[in-house]
Structure formats: C-alpha cells, structure tokens
C-alpha cells in the first residue's frame, strides 16, 4: 500500500547516534512525508568492537569477561552460551546442582532484561514512572547477583563444567523473598500499564507482524511468540534442566506491540515460577565439574622436566578445543542467541561466530515503520527490544 505523497520532495531526518531514548547508539535515517514515514534506514556499527576477532585470540576463560558486553542486560545468557559451546564440543557433563544454579541465574537474568526493556519502552511512549519502578526491582536482582557472583552486572560466573562458586549461605531464602515480592510488583505493573487507555492507544495495532512473516524474517524470542508461533527453545531443545519444571510458553496471536508487551510480562511471571521450583528442588552436590580441570596435556612435556623446575611460572592448563564445528543456542530474552564454533585443536577457537538476536530482529524495522507515523517509530523500535552491544558486537 503506497502512501500518497503530498509534496514533491520528502524530508530526511536523522535520528542520530545520540538520542534521548536508551536504546544505545543506533542511527536512523528517516524519510518523512509530513508525519508519515516513507522509509527508514538503520545505520549500525557505532559500537562495533571486533568481538569475534578478539575471540580468535583468547582462551574461553579469558574470553568470558568480553561476552557480557554483548547483551549487557541479560549477561548470564551470553556467559551460558560461551561455556555451552565448548561443553557440547567436548562432551563435558555438568553436575545437577550446577545445572540448577545456572537455571536460577538465567531466569533472574531474564527478569532483569525484561524489566530494563520495560522502563525505556514506557519512557519512549511517554510514561516516566515505570522507569523508576523497574530500577527498584532491578537493584534487588543486582544485590542477589552481587552476593553470589561478586559483580552487579558483568558477572564472569559461568565456567566450563559448572559455575565458578557455590551460592552463599542464606542466598536461597533471599531469593525466595525476592520472588514473593516480585509477584506483587508485576501486579502493580498490570494495574498501572496494561489497562491504561493511553498506553493501549499507542501500542495496540502498531507494528503488526504476521506468523508467516515472522518465520520468513528469521525472528525469534518474544517477537515470534507474539505472532502466534509457540516456539521456545527451552521446551524444544531441553537444555540445562528446564524439562524438570512445570511452566508454559507465553504466546499471543495478534503480533502487534501490545502482544509483545504481554508476552514479556507473562514471561517474567513464568520465570518466577521456574525460579521458585528450582530453589525448592535444588540438590546438593558439586557445583563444578572439577574433572574438567585436569585437561589433556602432553604427558612427557620437556617443560616439566628436572632442568626447568625453577625457571618460570608454568603456563596454566587450558581447555583445548578439538577440530570440530558446532552450533549451540539458548533462548535469550531477546531471542535466539547462538554461537557457531569451529575449533582448531588449540586453546583458541578458529572461528567464533555470534548469532545475535537483536541484529536479526532489527532487520524488520524498516518494513514495520513504513506506513506509520513518526511517533510510532519509537514504539516499534522499543517493542523489538534491541541492545546495541549485541547488534554491533
């Protein structure tokens, strides 16, 4: 459907890399006819740091601090996939307790990510209050993370074969308290936002994606589930121990921004359910597969000889990746996060290809804004839920 042009030449507006919303450094060049959008061209690359090239020169343990800078709102997922890739390559088993701890951390990270999606989304629409509410809840999650991992956001917690350290004493009770508190928080958001007529006017019917279209564009995550397709990698791949918990896939049929909002709110509620079940059922046992530490080393290396005893610090054993290739994926809050890893019989990977959900989901933006008003661009961009750290890598 073409928009009839009222003037001969259109206005080209640059929504530059620095803008008041908190999506990051995304530059949009928008062609306007009055208030209607004719075309929109996103320009990326303002945060490209060369993550994939850096990965070719780092061992997995050295690379873990870098991965949290891809999607810095849901940092546990990036770490999870960085250790899942070598684990599946070398067939390393993860102990049960470590798997439960990982699931708890991943679901807390999912809640944190959806919360920080909600704040700027509402701020773009014009409501400033939910911004403060989400930071209040996110601070509580940060406290939990800081107690368990030592850092508020960039944890460096996952290791090959488990997690770095066990949960401190009393953490489980604090986490259960948080779950109870958070359920009242979600009720508050429902009362404030979901039936608000101004909010509904702005998001209902905006940015509709059909089911077929969503599959064709390669979308994943809440964008796919809001268009009627019940595809959740936690149910399909059954990684970690998600099949031991009782939860449902959240999905909606309409495919507009309101549907995406409802899917994410529902996912937060399901995450709390999973966390509560995991906390109550967490087994004892080891938190890391310490066998993995005894890596295959050359048995009679000359550097371990008698003459070299006091020369210098011996290099620490490292995890060697064999010469195979593999694709692993997790259900990140933004979509399907994947790593395609090609090992090379050395400690450094040969190729570390990142499949970021935000990058793939952002492709649909020019098509979605074509018939909309200028003010709808921010609604649609917000509902796609991108984060420039992973879009640009």
């Amino acid at each position, binding site marked *: 459907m073409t928009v009839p042009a009222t003037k001969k030449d259109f206005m080209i507006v640059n929504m530059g890399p620095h803008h008041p919303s908190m999506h990051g450094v995304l530059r949009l060049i928008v062609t306007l006819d009055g208030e209607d959008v004719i075309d929109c061209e996103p320009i990326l*690359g303002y945060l490209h740091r*060369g993550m994939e090239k850096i990965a070719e020169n*780092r061992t997995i343990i050295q690379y873990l*601090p870098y991965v949290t800078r891809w999607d810095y709102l849901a940092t546990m997922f990036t770490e999870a996939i960085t250790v899942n890739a070598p684990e599946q390559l070398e067939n390393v088993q993860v102990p049960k307790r470590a798997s439960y701890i990982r699931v708890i951390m991943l679901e807390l990270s999912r809640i944190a990510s959806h919360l920080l999606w909600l704040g700027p989304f509402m701020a773009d629409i014009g409501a400033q209050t939910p911004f403060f509410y989400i*930071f209040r809840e*996110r601070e509580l999650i940060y406290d939990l993370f800081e107690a368990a991992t030592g850092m*508020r956001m960039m944890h460096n917690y996952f290791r090959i074969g488990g997690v770095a350290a066990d949960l401190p004493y009393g953490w489980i009770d604090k986490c259960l308290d948080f779950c109870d508190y958070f359920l009242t928080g979600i009720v508050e958001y429902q009362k404030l936002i979901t039936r608000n007529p101004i909010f509904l006017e702005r998001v209902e019917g905006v940015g509709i994606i059909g089911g077929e279209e969503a599959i064709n564009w390669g979308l994943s995550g809440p964008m796919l589930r809001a268009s009627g397709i019940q595809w959740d990698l936690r149910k399909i791949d059954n990684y970690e121990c998600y099949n031991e918990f009782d939860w449902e896939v959240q999905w909606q049929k309409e495919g507009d921004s309101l549907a995406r909002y409802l899917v994410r709110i529902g996912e937060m509620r399901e995450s709390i359910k999973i966390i509560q079940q995991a906390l109550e059922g967490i087994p004892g046992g080891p938190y890391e597969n310490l066998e993995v530490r005894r890596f295959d080393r050359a048995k009679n290396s000359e550097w371990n000889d008698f003459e070299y005893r006091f020369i210098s610090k011996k290099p620490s054993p490292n995890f060697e990746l064999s010469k195979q290739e593999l694709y692993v994926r997790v259900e990140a809050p933004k979509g399907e996060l994947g790593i395609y890893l090609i090992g090379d019989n050395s400690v450094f990977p040969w190729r570390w290809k990142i499949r970021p959900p935000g990058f793939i989901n952002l492709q649909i933006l020019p098509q979605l804004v074509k018939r909309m008003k200028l003010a709808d661009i921010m609604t649609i961009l917000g509902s796609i839920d991108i984060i420039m750290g992973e879009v640009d890598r």
Partner: protein
Amino acid sequence: MNLIEFPSVDKTITNLVISTTLNDLSNWSRLSSLWPLLYGTNCCFIEFALLIGSRFEFDHYGLVPRSSPRQADLILIADTITMKMAPSLVRLYKQMSEPKYVIAMGAFAITGGMFSTNSYSTVCGVDKLSLIDVYLPSYPT
C-alpha cells in the same frame, strides 16, 4: 591534549589539592547542580541510568539528565568509544556551552580497557578526543 613534560607539582600543589569533609563536598555538589548529558553507548550507561533510579538518585544533588548538549554541563563518558562514534562524541563536546566538564569513567574510556589489544575499531582512551577533567578508574558495573 596530553602534555609531554610532567607538570611541576611543587608550587602549584596548593591549587590542586583540597581537603574537606564529606558533608562539605556533598553540600558543594548540591549547590553546583551540574546537569549531565544523557549520553551512553554501552553497558556502563546502564549504571549511569541507575543513578537516576531510586536507590542512588542523583536528583537530590541537583543533577538532571539532559538530552541536548546545549543544556548540559557535564558529559560522563562511560563506555567504549569506537572510531565510528568518535566524531559524534567530539561534536557533542563542542556543542556543549562553557563551562563544561568531562568525566572519563571506567577502564574502557580511559585506556580502552580490555579492548585495547586485538580490537581494530576501539579508541584506546578518550583523552585522544577531548580534554578530560576527572578520570575514574576501575569498572562501573
């Protein structure tokens, strides 16, 4: 930008060092009421936004985040700056009106941090781009 010779610290030390109490420093920052520019590229921007939140609210110091560089006094460069973003940052800095202050927060902004090796597009240190008033080392998050 960076001086080659070391600054002589014998005579001018009294101008560089102020001793005060935390209460006085807090009151001074309240009356100064700097307005920071809402600027961020990467993860450390979330920490900056957290300052607006309820736990560390910086509104009671008089800091209101402004989006336009014309209305801002302070730019808090907290993240990795890449070579593509650098001209935008310099343009923002030039558009800010005097008096203006720059804080480089975090290892990524001061020296490039862990991206200083093997990264082909990171600017290793924001002091290559503009004059910095305060360097805050370590990492915000």
